[in-house]
């Protein structure tokens, strides 16, 4: 398996090994981590266990096949997996293809910047801690929003509640990302 600076999370390290070396052992470890969480996440929206497992299977296969799109300098593993999971759920349950933004054209040969990867992971870690510290009713609103159970009007009427607080944290970290993206223009 690839050697990464020790501070980078094991999930990111596994994902990079899958992306760069098509490492099946690393993929199996990602499966062990994500499959039960994905199943729990998908079943929360009322999907039965059987269909949830079908979606888990497709999400895990997408992680394998689309690994080259994983960029740890922009997205932390669980954010990337979340997006794949929501897309698959929508494709399966609503029988429609969700419009996706263009991918950013990037230089694939660029060396990964460990400090940037760590910064992204730190943001994500702080966000998860913040989520876990919320009062149950506030946490419930956030979870509902990201499970796709709230309309944009309902999310809009929740402004000032935890969504804004949590997001302002991640926004700070993303200033750097924005600046770098602008350099590319």
């Amino acid at each position, binding site marked *: 398996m690839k050697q990464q600076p020790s501070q980078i999370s094991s999930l990111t390290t596994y994902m990079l090994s899958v992306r760069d070396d098509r490492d099946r052992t690393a993929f*199996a470890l990602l499966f062990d981590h994500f499959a039960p*969480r994905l199943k729990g996440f998908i079943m929360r929206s009322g999907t039965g266990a059987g269909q949830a497992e079908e979606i888990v299977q497709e999400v895990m296969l997408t992680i394998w096949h689309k690994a080259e799109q994983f960029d740890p300098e922009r997205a932390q593993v669980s954010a*990337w997996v979340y997006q794949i999971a929501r897309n698959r759920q929508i494709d399966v349950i609503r029988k429609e293809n969700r419009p996706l933004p*263009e991918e*950013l054209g990037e230089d694939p040969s660029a060396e990964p910047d460990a400090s940037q990867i760590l910064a992204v992971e730190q943001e994500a870690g702080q966000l998860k801690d913040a989520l876990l510290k919320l009062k149950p009713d506030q946490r419930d609103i956030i979870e509902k929003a*990201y499970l796709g159970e*709230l309309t944009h009007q309902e999310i809009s009427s929740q402004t000032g509640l935890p969504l804004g607080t949590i997001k302002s944290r991640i926004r700070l970290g993303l200033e750097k990302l924005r600046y770098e*993206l602008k350099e590319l223009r």
Partner: protein
Amino acid sequence: MTAITHHTPDALLAAYAAGNLPQPFALAVAAHISLCLDCRAAHEAHLVSGGAVLEASKVEAVSEGLKSNVLDLLDAQVVEKKVYQRSGIYPGPVMEALKGKPPRWKSLGMGVRQSILSDGREGSVRLLYIPSGRAVPDHSHNGLELTLVLQGSFSDETGRFGVGDIEVADQSLEHTPIADEGAPCICLAATDAPLRFNSFVPRLLQPLFRI
């Protein structure tokens, strides 16, 4: 590219990240993110929040055999979904809605044209072509309208909208967008209400009466 000054509101970005926007709005937001780095970053922040919810999800044990199934399938051939690239003024998601072909414009009179991309239960989305000085057709009189400028610009009581800007209008906004001088204004217009045409002509005549 001129600076984008009118962005996608955060609640729409959050609902888009969670996959809970009606299809016409999802297309408008995906197209706007394709053009706007600020909203791309904000969208990615929502994905991180979604990832945190996923990480904090209750763990449900998967059936015995699911893992070996998945591992066995890693080498199976997959059909790659076609990825549409930006073409001229049209961002990738719009090219996908156009199925890779140029828009098929239909005249609405007065030089204004439209090309309907979809029209269904969840609302409609279309491209509009408005010569300078003409009014942007009203999409509907109820519900929410998102208008993303792809070429030229238009102005109304609330400001000027150039390439990449998105206007969010609900029924409370009384406005008359007019295409500015210069190249014809081409925009992507999405609404969650059915298309209505009967109010179109009177509104189109408004700028003439102002002369």
